[in-house]
């Protein structure tokens, strides 16, 4: 990875406003940054800072009010199908089974039903939902739904995965397992998925996974800090350098 290559995606003076009855709300204010292929970026910041909004902009769900979002050097005007999103509230379709929910995004991309079936089953296994293929979302616990959302995004094998608090409803053990799984997929250069953008509220989680942390602030909605995390992997939470880093991020947020 050299610094001179074109960034994978790039925000140029991106401003995002929402019209509300009581007036305009500026959520992101002239944000400029870029991300290289292969990076694992964590986004932290207070509630309402615009973290989910940032992910939506990368995904192309939301056109910016002003400024440009570039992907591989090209301005984006529609949904970017090289990226896949894990939604904060899972956003599963209640009338589809676990299997069908995961398959949904593949229907446009893979025409061969057998290959599709294999792919879906593979990722159901990855997130540990074997045996629940035929269950409906309402029969699942919060953590299980979150894993369906995760599998749905992984299954399309995107170049970039955008995750909105993907481990927040999981129990400790499952979340440790899934984090490891995610790191494996990310660091495995054979598959397409080399870049991760993850929103999280847990500073320790950010430091454990990411090699770059963006701290968003609220009012004004800007990137208050952009930190490199140089700690060696696998990371140890009891390492003094790690603890020092936690304190640093904490002081930047507070």
């Amino acid at each position, binding site marked *: 990875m050299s610094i001179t290559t074109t960034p994978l995606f790039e925000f140029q003076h991106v401003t995002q406003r929402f019209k509300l009855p009581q007036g305009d709300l500026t959520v992101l204010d002239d944000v400029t940054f870029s991300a290289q292929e292969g990076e694992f970026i964590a986004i932290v910041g207070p509630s309402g800072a615009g973290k989910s909004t940032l992910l939506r902009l990368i995904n192309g*769900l939301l056109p910016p009010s002003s400024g440009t979002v570039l992907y591989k050097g090209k301005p984006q005007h529609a949904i970017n199908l090289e990226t896949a*999103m894990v939604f904060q*509230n899972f*956003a599963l379709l209640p*009338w589809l089974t676990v299997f069908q929910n995961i398959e949904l*995004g593949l229907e446009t991309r893979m025409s061969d039903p057998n290959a599709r079936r294999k792919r879906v089953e593979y990722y159901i296994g990855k997130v540990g939902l074997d045996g629940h293929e035929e269950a409906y979302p309402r029969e699942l616990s919060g953590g299980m739904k979150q894993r369906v959302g995760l599998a749905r995004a992984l299954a399309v094998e995107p170049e970039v995965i955008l995750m909105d608090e993907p481990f927040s409803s999981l129990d400790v053990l499952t979340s440790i397992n899934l984090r490891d799984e995610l790191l494996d997929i990310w660091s495995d250069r054979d598959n397409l998925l080399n870049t991760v953008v993850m929103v999280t509220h847990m500073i320790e989680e950010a430091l454990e996974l990411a090699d770059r942390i963006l701290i968003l602030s609220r009012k004004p909605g800007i990137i208050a800090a952009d930190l490199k995390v140089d700690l060696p992997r696998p990371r140890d939470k009891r390492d003094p350098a790690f603890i020092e880093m936690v304190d640093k991020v904490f002081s930047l947020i507070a």
Partner: protein
Amino acid sequence: MQSPQVSKIQTSLIYILLLGAVFGIIQILYHGGVHLTELTAENVTIKELPSELALSFFRMVISYLASLIFAYFFGLTAARSKWGERIILPMLDIFQSMPVVTFFPAAIAMFIGITQGHRLGVEMAATFLIFTSQAWNMAFAVYESVKAIPSEQQEVIDSFGVTGSLRFWRLFAPASVPRLVYNSILSWSNGWFFLVACEIIAVGRVKYQLPGIGNFLSRAAEQDDIRLILWGLAALISLVLLMDYMIWRPASQWALRFKHDSNSSEQLHENTHLNLPIPGFFLASITPIQLYANKLIRAFFSPVVWIFEEIILPLIWDLPHYLWINGPKAVTRSTKIISYGALTFLFVHFVILLVQLSIQLLTPPYPSILKDIPGAILVSTLRVVIALVISLLWIVPVTLMVWDKPKIRGYLLTIAQIGASLPATALFPLIILIGVRKFGGGMEVSSIILLITGMQWYILFNSLGGSMAIPADIADATRSMGLTKLQTWKRLVLPASRPALITGAITAWGGGWNALVVSEYINFKSELLEVYGIGALINNAVYKSGDTRTITYCIFSLILWIVLINTLLWKPLYHGSLERYKFDG
């Protein structure tokens, strides 16, 4: 919802206005005197339009208030007591499937008979008939919303020891507001739609006509004066639009506060403040005029609220509570004896009446009409089904086109509200003159067209409402995955609108029978146009012979048929779809 903040001057102004209105109305009533007889040949002119519209509006207001009280009384009782539920729900179901004309005999007996044909009695009868087109669905709204209160909320209220009428104000009233507002919009539209039928009450040779917009329109039609009809319709549409702007939009906005919303920050995304199936394309901006109207309305309602709180609520609330919910230990012996005694007396009386009626109906000779009924019902059913299918054929595609376009959807909902309010009977001359006579097709086609004008709006209302309720993050997720338009329709919009579509179809089915009765039998330029069907049979029995036995046979078989189809077909379909297709996964 308590103590509206209105200045004393405004309040007194309103009382003065109200008193003036009451005085004026009494004047009109007595001036009208008792000269109500057969249909007068007297022509209507444009000059009568404002006063006739005002009179109809006043009847609608009274009937709406009565419906509100009815809705809370029966809705709450049904929701809170097992027995109430068992008796009241089927009752509402039956009433709902009874066409307005079938209430004529009851209206005449109850109001006109007692007052000996006095204007006041006729007024009350007409208001009662409007009530029959408004009340039932509002009672269902209260019942269903109270039933849908999450048990956690009930438990919170219980755990703080909130009892008595405070419980009503803190739990049941807020919970029922969103559905009730929505159903009130439907009820008003319904009231306008059947106004013609309500303002001209006729059984056999007896005929009472009241000045009002419904009467105006039908008279204009008889006079074959298209311009007058258009004027009348324009006035009606203006009033509907005004009410939409001044009352329903602010009310819908206000009702949003009572929705239990789910957890997410995503809730704010663009279409979620249109979550309620209500017309609301500019809900977000309430203008000062609307605010002022709102204040006035609240001031108007403050005496109503007072009456409700002090008199009706204790009745709704405490009486059943003492009588049966709380069990015998809460009541004194004498009240128990009195109340149970009264109930038994009423019950016995009712049974005797029923037996008498059955004997009367079952003794030969049977009217010859009996053997016509099954065939007529079948033919009519076919018509209703055709109208239903045609309505679905245009509404489903429209819903698919506009589900993610809140603005257009808002306009469509307003159009639906207007469309639903136009009395079909007023449209008849237009449809017959323009459509059928010009392009051919005959009475058979026009009766189906008329049926559609009475049915399609329910489906449109519901279907748009259902598509509106799609949570923003789920819509985003399907977009994010790059689903094609076709896939999004198939996987997201159609399944999401399914319960609402079925509700719409059920409501349209009920309303369709009501409209059927008026569309199979039309007086047009003193020419009688009718097609074979149960509606025509009923109309013939009501308007021509006035034979109680024939009327009873027809109505009884029709109700039986409607209720049968409801329980065998619609209910299972509805419950099945609700379970599977509801969001909260």
